[in-house]
């Protein structure tokens, strides 16, 4: 099982203290720890790999520059993903119109570079289907889904990013699941919920 960001809160703080004491290269440990989850978070929102990699760099650089404002002892992933949510939102708005083309190209790239091309093609279809459905969720539900299902943050950490308690977050996920099923066309009709929020 992957290392949990939540379980490493203490060591995150010690790494940050080390950085603030002058060892800026210690930041590589945080980059390695959170880079993959950040990539997935940016990827699902931005729609292509290159944009997502750029966004990861942008977020990590901004977080580094702002480390002095981080409160030691607080959960670093919650702080980091809050920056990411803000930055990705800005980039998404700026690049939204070009997304369809990017997605078509990168879907083919994703499929081609994997040896199990058939499974990869299906995964690409699944990813596109899910991404389109998530794009129709209200903003608060959407962010919750992206953090939990795609970034893979534990509920506790994802809830901190959103700024609610764990139980409230689970409730949001449940509502999001119901809406996704409805959007995907698999939920019983009607279910008493409207798509708007």
């Amino acid at each position, binding site marked *: *099982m*992957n290392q*949990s960001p*939540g379980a490493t809160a203490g060591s995150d703080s010690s790494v940050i*203290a080390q*950085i*603030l*004491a*002058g060892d*800026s*290269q210690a*930041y590589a440990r945080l*980059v390695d720890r959170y880079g*993959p*989850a950040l990539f*997935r978070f940016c990827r699902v929102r931005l729609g292509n*790999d290159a944009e997502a*990699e*750029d966004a*990861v*760099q942008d977020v990590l650089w*901004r977080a*580094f520059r*702002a480390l*002095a*404002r*981080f*409160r*030691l*002892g*607080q959960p670093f992933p*919650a*702080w980091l993903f*809050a*920056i990411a949510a803000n930055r990705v939102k800005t980039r998404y708005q700026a690049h939204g119109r070009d997304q369809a083309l990017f997605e078509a190209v990168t879907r083919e790239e*994703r499929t081609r570079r994997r040896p199990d091309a058939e499974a990869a093609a*299906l*995964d690409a*279809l*699944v*990813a*596109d*289907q*899910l991404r389109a459905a998530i794009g129709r969720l209200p903003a*608060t539900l959407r962010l919750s889904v992206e953090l*939990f*299902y*795609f*970034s*893979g*943050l*534990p509920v*506790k950490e994802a809830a901190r990013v959103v*700024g609610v308690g764990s139980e409230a977050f689970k409730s949001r996920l*449940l509502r999001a*699941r119901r809406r996704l099923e409805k959007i*995907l*066309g*698999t939920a019983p*009709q009607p279910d008493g919920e409207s798509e708007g929020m």
Partner: protein
Amino acid sequence: MSVKPDAGRNNNANPGPEGRGPVATTQRSLAVKGALDFLATRDREAAAAPEQASEVAGRLYPRAAAAAADSRERLLDRIRSAGPGLRLARPGQPGHRSGQQGRWPRILALVAAALVLVIVSSTVTAAVMRRRALVEITFVLVAADARSVALAGDFNAWSIDSHPLQPGAVAGSWEITLRLPKGRVYNYNFVIDAQHWVTDPRSPFTLDDGMGGIVSSLIL
């Protein structure tokens, strides 16, 4: 939160961009089933190990190792290039905020500042009031899910404690009314739940604070 996928039911309700032919419909059915399977798998994983980060989350969006390595190196190069000149506050130095460190010096500084304020405030306030130079302004933020909201700005040394907002008349809104001297520029942000720094959506101006953040700006 587990959901049993039922891809055979009503899958044509939202035909995708691929079209409406039988091949496209089959593809979409498979994709929908796969999507629900993915969500259910992540749910089961979280139920089994709620404190752990996910192993399955990366399946749909695999990250190219070469691109990841390149991105990492470019970032670390950028940090190296910035060198020691990059302004990062050190623990215990002004600008670094820690929950534990430096509390007493801050309290003493606040007491000293309060004493100075007591001495000079009457004179300054009287002078300002004589010129009718104070403006009453209400800061409002709508944050329905917030447990607390504070106003932090250059007028209160970016304290997240000194100016808490109170619930407003409109559900989900928070507000605070201040009297501020005219003729100045105020930079500020709202702080939600003592940790999320956000700009004022009603502020006509925002500025880069030079530390990777954005601040709202107000001219009186």
